[in-house]
C-alpha cells in the first residue's frame, strides 16, 4: 500500500513537473532517491522528507523509491542528472560502487547530499555533506545518562561499588550495533559500570526476550542495568524481567536507543528509564541544507541530526508529539 502510494506520488510529481516546468524556474528542484520502505523507521523517514518538501513553497521534490536495489538508485540519479535538478540527495543502500555515477553528477555541476548513510569513495569532493545520526554519539549519550542518573534511581547505599550491566546488541556486523557498542564502552570505560554479558538480540522483540531470559538465568539478581541497542529489544527484555519476578525500571535500570512510540508507553508505566533518540525525521534538516547550499553558503562535511535524550520523567508530555 505504502509502495503504491509512493508510485502514485512519483507519477503525480512527474505530472506536476511537466505542467509546472515553465513556472519552476524560481523553485529549487531536489531529486531524492530513497532506499525503499523496509522498516517503520524508513517509512517515517520518507514521510518526513515528502511532507517537509510540500510545506516549503520554494522547493520542488522529485522522489524515487529504489526498492532496496543499488541499480535502481543509480538509474534514478542518472535521470535526475539528465533532468538537470539543482540538488541530488540520497540514502545509499550500500557503501560501495558509487564513484562513476557521482562523477557524472559532479561533471554536471550538481551537488550531492548523503542522507543517513555514508558512501565509501576515495574522492570526498564527490559529495557535499553527509547528514544523519551519529551512532557512536548515541551510545555515548546512553552511557553518560546512565552514569549521571544511576545513583538517583537505584539505592546508592549498595555495598558493592561495581554496577553490573548487560548489553543487548543489534544485528552482528551492522553499523548501528558496532557503533553503539563502541560509544557506550568509550564513556563507561574505567568507571564502576562493567558489562558482564553482551549478546546479539538481532534488533527484535522475540530475540531480546530470549536473550534476556538467559542472562537472568545465569546472572540473576546481580544484574543492575540493561543497555539495549534498540527499543524493540528492550521491550522484549522487559517481559522476560517481569516473568523472572523483578521490576523493570526499578530492580533493573533500562536504557535503550531509538525513542519509538512503544518505548514512551513503557516509560510512562515506569518500565524503561531512558531512551536516546535516533531520529528518522531528516526532512527539515535536509531542506535547510539545500536552501543554504543554493544561497551559496558553505556546508559542513558532516551534519549530525538534532537528537534528544528522553528520560522517563518527560515521557507523558512528549508521547503525543512523537511521529514514529
Amino acid at each position, binding site marked *: *500500500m*505504502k509502495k503504491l502510494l509512493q508510485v502514485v506520488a512519483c507519477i503525480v510529481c512527474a505530472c506536476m513537473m511537466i505542467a509546472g516546468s515553465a513556472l519552476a524556474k524560481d523553485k529549487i528542484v531536489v531529486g531524492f532517491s530513497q532506499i525503499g*520502505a523496509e*522498516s*517503520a523507521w524508513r*517509512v517515517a523517514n520518507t514521510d518526513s522528507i515528502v511532507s517537509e518538501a510540500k510545506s516549503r513553497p520554494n522547493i520542488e521534490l522529485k522522489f524515487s523509491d529504489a526498492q532496496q536495489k543499488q541499480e535502481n538508485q543509480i538509474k534514478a540519479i542518472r535521470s535526475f542528472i539528465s533532468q538537470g535538478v539543482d540538488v541530488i540527495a540520497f540514502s545509499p543502500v550500500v557503501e560501495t560502487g558509487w564513484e562513476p555515477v557521482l562523477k557524472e553528477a559532479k561533471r554536471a555541476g550538481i551537488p550531492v547530499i548523503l542522507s543517513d548513510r555514508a558512501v565509501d569513495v576515495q574522492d570526498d569532493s564527490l559529495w557535499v555533506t553527509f547528514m544523519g545520526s551519529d551512532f557512536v554519539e548515541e551510545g555515548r549519550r546512553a552511557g553518560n545518562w546512565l552514569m549521571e542518573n544511576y545513583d538517583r534511581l537505584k539505592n546508592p547505599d549498595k555495598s558493592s561499588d561495581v554496577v553490573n550491566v548487560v548489553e543487548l*546488541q543489534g544485528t*552482528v*556486523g551492522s553499523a548501528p550495533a558496532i557503533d553503539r557498542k563502541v560509544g557506550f564502552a568509550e564513556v563507561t570505560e574505567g568507571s564502576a559500570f562493567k558489562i558482564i*554479558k*553482551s*549478546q*546479539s538480540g*538481532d534488533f*527484535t*522483540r*522475540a*530475540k531480546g*526476550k*530470549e*536473550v534476556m*531470559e*538467559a*542472562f537472568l*538465568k*545465569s546472572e540473576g539478581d546481580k544484574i543492575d542495568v540493561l543497555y539495549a541497542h534498540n527499543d*524493540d529489544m528492550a*521491550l*522484549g527484555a522487559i*517481559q522476560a524481567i517481569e*516473568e523472572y*519476578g523483578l521490576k523493570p525500571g526499578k530492580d533493573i535500570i533500562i536504557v535503550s536507543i531509538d525513542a519509538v512510540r*512503544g518505548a514512551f508507553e513503557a516509560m510512562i508505566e515506569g518500565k524503561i528509564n531512558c531512551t536516546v533518540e535516533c531520529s528518522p525525521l531528516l526532512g527539515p534538516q535536509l531542506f535547510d541544507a539545500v536552501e543554504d547550499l543554493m544561497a551559496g553558503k558553505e556546508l559542513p562535511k558532516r551534519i549530525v541530526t538534532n537528537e534528544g535524550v528522553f528520560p522517563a520523567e518527560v515521557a507523558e508530555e512528549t508521547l503525543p508529539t512523537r511521529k514514529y
Partner: protein
Amino acid sequence: MNQVQWLRSENFQRMLWPLMALVGILLFNLFFTPGFFHIEIKDGRFFGSLVDIANRAAPVMLLAIGMTLVFATGGVDLSVGAVMAISGAIAATVIRPDYVKGVLEYGEVQSLFLVLSIPLFFSLLAGLWNGLLVAVIGIQPIIATLILMVAGRGIAQLITQGQIVVFIHEPFQYIGSGFLFGLPFPIILVLLTFTVTYLLTRRTGLGLFIEAIGANSVASRFMGIRERLITLSVYIFSGFCAGLAGLIVCADIKAADANNAGLFLELDAIAAVIIGGTMWGGRFTIFGSIVGTLIIQSLTTTILTRGVAPEVTLVFKAFVIILVALIQSEKFRRLFSGRMARKKVPAS
C-alpha cells in the same frame, strides 16, 4: 518385544546418535555451566534453564513435527516461517483491527475463539495452497513452497502495514506465556500435538502410507494408497503447525512483528528434522525431530548463558551441528572405526 531386542531395533539405533549428542551438550553444561540444571519451583511453576530450553524450542518443535511428515513424503515446506508471520499478523489484527490506521484505543475485547480460529484457518489455507501446488499441479516442493516463503512475509507486512502491532489480550497471551501444571503452556501444546501426531501415524496405517509415498509415489498409487490426498493433507498439517507456532511467538511477545517473526525458522526446522534422523522420502521419526530441535535450542541457550562472543556464535553453532550430522553418517563412522581397526593390525 523384550528389552534387548528393543535396544537392537532399527528405530532405537537411529535415535541413538541424536540422543547422545543431546546428552553430550547437557553433560557439558552439567560440568561447566554452574546452575544450568538448577530447577526450582517458583509460585507453583518450574523455573530454570532446562525449562527455558523446552519453552524456547516449542515453536520450532511444532514446525519440525509438520516438517517431518512433509519430509517423509519426499517434500519440503519452506514456507513455514512466513506462515508463522501471517498467522501472528492476523491474530494481532483481529485483536486491534484499527491499530494500523493509527487508532490506539482498544475496541471491545475480541473473543478468544475468533483470535485463534481466524489465523489458524488462514494457516490451513496456506498449507492447502502448498499442497495443491505440490500434489495436484505437481510442482517441485522446494519451488512450490518457495513461492509462499517469499510472498508470505510480504502478505504479513501488508496486514500489519509494516508496523509492529502491539496488543493486550490476557486469554490469548496465555498461549505464549501461560503455565499449566507448572509447565509453560507452549510445552503442553507441543506435547499434545506430538501425541496426536504420533498416535495418528504409528497406531494407524497413515505413517506407513506416508513413508510409502516418500519411498516411491508411483508404486504406492498402484498399491491403492490415495497418494494425492495424503500428500495434500500433510502440507495442510504443516501449515497448521506453522500457524500454531506463529500464535505462540506472537502471544509470547504480545506483538506481531511481521518482519522478524519466524524469520529463518524454516531452516532450523529442516536442520532439526535431519539431525533427528528422518530421511528425505521414507522412514521418519517425529521423536527424533523433537530431539533435533532440543539439540539446536540447548546449543543456543548454552551460548547465551555462557556468553560466547556474538560474532562467533554462528560458527560455533555450525560446528556442533556438522559434528552431529557427521556422527550420524554410517560411512563417516566406518571411516573412523576402519582406521582404528587398521591400526590394530600391526599391534596384534
